[in-house]
């Protein structure tokens, strides 16, 4: 498999989008990630990750509803494309494979020492 150009942070954002499903818009993604990562994230970092992944074809987006709280501006709902989904699954598999390849004994020995 060709190495996908997906950064660590981008991968997290992509996962968040997949997890949130229909609710995946900027603020919600930010909230979700902040909760899980336990640190504050800037709108800029999330937005640039989203836009970059959209350009690469991992995501698509469309306008959603507008709320009073948003000053009447519409949300943009992100959904993962099948390509994006596949890349995520691939990454997970690669990781899982690598994890299982770590010799248990070696790891335990090192942690004992």
């Amino acid at each position, binding site marked *: 498999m060709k190495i996908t150009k997906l950064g660590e942070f981008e991968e997290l954002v992509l996962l968040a989008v997949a997890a949130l499903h229909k609710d995946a818009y900027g603020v919600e993604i*930010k909230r979700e990630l902040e909760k899980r990562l336990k640190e504050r994230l*800037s709108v*800029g970092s999330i*937005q640039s990750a989203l836009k970059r992944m959209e350009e690469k074809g991992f995501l698509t987006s469309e306008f959603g509803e507008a709320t009073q*709280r948003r*000053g009447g501006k519409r949300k943009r709902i992100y959904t993962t494309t099948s390509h994006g989904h596949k890349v995520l699954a691939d990454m997970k598999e690669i990781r899982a494979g690598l994890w299982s390849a770590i010799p248990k004994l070696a790891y335990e020995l090192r942690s004992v020492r």
Partner: protein
Amino acid sequence: MIEPKPIVPPRWPLRLLRLFVKERYLEEIEGDMEEIFYDNVEQLSARRARRIYTWEMLKLWRPILVRNLEVLEKINQYAMLKNYFKVSLRGLMKNPLNSFINVFGLSAAIGICVFAYAFAAWTFGTDQFHEHKSEVYLITFFANRDGVPQQFGRSPRPLGEMIKEDFAQVRNMCRVEDRNVVMKYKDYVFHERVRYVDPAFLEMFTFPLKWGTTNSLKDVSSIVLSEDMATKYFGAANPVGLDILMIFGTGAHGESLSKSFKVTGVAKEFPQARTISFDFLINYDNLRTTDPNYDFHDWNAFVNATFVQLNEPNDLKIIEQSMEKYRKVQNEAVQKDWALSSFAFEPLATLHKRSEFIRDDISRSSSSNYASIVYMCIIAVLIMALACFNYINIAIATAAKRLKEIGLRKTIGATRGLVIFQFLAENVVVTFFALIVGVTLGMTFFIPGFEQMWHFNMGFKLTDPNLWIYLPIILVMTSVASGIYPSLYISRFQVVGILKGSIKFGQRNSMTKIFLCAQLALACVFITMSVMFTQNNSYMAKRSWGYDHAQTMYAQIPDKDGYEELYALMLRNKDIVSISGSSHHLGKTNGTVVLHFPEREVEVDQMMVDAHYFETMGLKIEQGRLFKNHDNADKHAVIINELMAKNMAWANAVDQHFQIDSVQYEVIGVVKDFHSYSFSKPIKPTIFTVADKNDYRFLTLKVREGSEVETFKAMQANWAKLFPEIPFEGGFQEDVWAGYFEANRIYKIVWSVFTFIAVSLAVLGLYGLITLNVAGRIREFSIRKVMGAGIKSIAANIINQYLVLFVLALIVGAPLGFVLTKMLFETSFPYHMPVGFSSSILAVVILILILLSTVFAQIRKVQKMNPVDGLKVE
């Protein structure tokens, strides 16, 4: 009921966002930001929410979200500009000689511009650091002298206090009086000048203190030092609280009078650009102790300066209107000839600029600095012109090589405007390099060199904000000035003509010739000036001062007793030819006095001397006799100088008389004119009167030839014996004007540097042109050589092209240089060597030699060249 104001996000970050973020993302991001804001308002305070909102907005500045970057990549100009930049860099690399000539010339010019800027900034910034500069005024007055109204910086002694009492608008008042004293701390004993000031001084003139407190001057026994003085006496340690002794005179029985002061403040290092500062500050009231005769209420006497600080600059009008009453009081108190016509207030902000026109002003005048700025600007512009001419000439001469490129550009759709734009853009690149080199040159060579020569520091830094406005202006102006003509010229040609090869240009451009001619003429002007400056300096060094300063030395003495003791000791020295005492001394001090004639009044310089002074100083008597040498002789006799006799139109000056302070004086003799100031100031009408022994302040010696050093040492030794507490002050008469000659030497160096730059620019330009010319005709010369042409014929061939040009340049340049130098000499030197043609001729010869050597370097190259190589081209 009033609704509570709804909390809304701040407006300006949103506007900023709309400016820079891509339009298609706007709605989403705006909405997200607003939602987060209201979330934050609920959880945190409104203020913090706003802060987070603003901060987040700024952090949205990311490449992928910003709109302009996308635009930049999409428009085709981007690629075009990139190409222009690449082409200019390649051009620079391809012709290192031409690039060097261009960059060197422009950077030298820019270096001078930076230097001129630094100097102007320093001059205009003088005394501008005081916070209250626009509320503080110097009280001056106008009075008639010789029928000419003049402004004086002094003021009547009681005036300051009266104004302070009479007007509520005056917040502070400060009188300033300077006195020479001797300062002593442990073994450190020096002559010093102290400033007696009112306690408000440090409030009005905001010199920050390093140690101590500003208001401590209210105490009469406290003293505030400058940083230099603190270091001189106390070293680097904080001296606040230490005592320093001030010796201000000698008592009736020869004991020294002194007062101990406690250091209560040390000023921070003064800004470099200042004229009003101090070494020592003590309370004005100390004058009561140190000078018992000082009458604070005498309208007839003056204080060096009185400053007032107003609550509002607008209040000045009210005070100015009421000055009339003081004028009346003043004019009743003084004699008729000192009557003043009006008072005037000079703001501190412009005092430095104006002080040239104010007599006896404590702020030094610097008209020469303001004049120097003008000269420097002229020189900077001239050098800039030389560099631009070089650029233009080389650009035109090399244009032939770029014809194909331009033709192609035009064919694929470049308009004439775009070609012009391309050439100007290339120019900006070259000028930008020159700017970097030039600023470096200015900061590391011109400015430090200048500061080192004059032993001062302009305190100029690259962080000066105005410099960063000035430099881009220079960049654009220089690029346009040097690039506009070549770009217009080159872009003019038609594509068909270019590609067909039917256009020939570059070598026969008449503008090129005009520019080269102007360059050489300018070089000629610079050489002429430089030659004349050098000649004038040696002329001035030989010029007679009107008296004989060889084997003459002087010592400053405190009073009559000091004089007599030193006189008695020195008289025993066998090497002494003549010895005399005086109140004033040539080249050191003189007084001024108003002479009354029945029909008019004349102000002249006055020197009070004894009968031997003329012999000691070698002043030559022309008419009449000298003073008689016994006490009380010639009390009402004066000896005048020739200029005075000439000004008064006296055919026979002896026996003429006039009044000084209602006492009748009679002229008994006339001495030859002499310089009591440096050669940079004109001789003034001067009278000599007999000095009262109590007023002797100088002891002057004429010694046997060869014994100067020995006698001087003996005098110093005698002094140390007599006055162990007071440092010796005196020297050889020859050294009095050392500073003046040093200044002249520096002018010469400065001119030589400018001349060197100007001439090397002109020569480099010429060299570049000839090189290109010869390179273009290399085949022709090869064929000529093959056919048997000798070096003579080839040399004639090359020179012929430039001969007319050289002659024309010299015909214009030599007389121009002559006239300009003459003008410069006449406006800035009252005395100078006769401006003759010899210097012009010398300059012309120098220039011809330089030109010929430049041309011959090329001729030699052609001579040594193998014609086969020349024909093998392509």
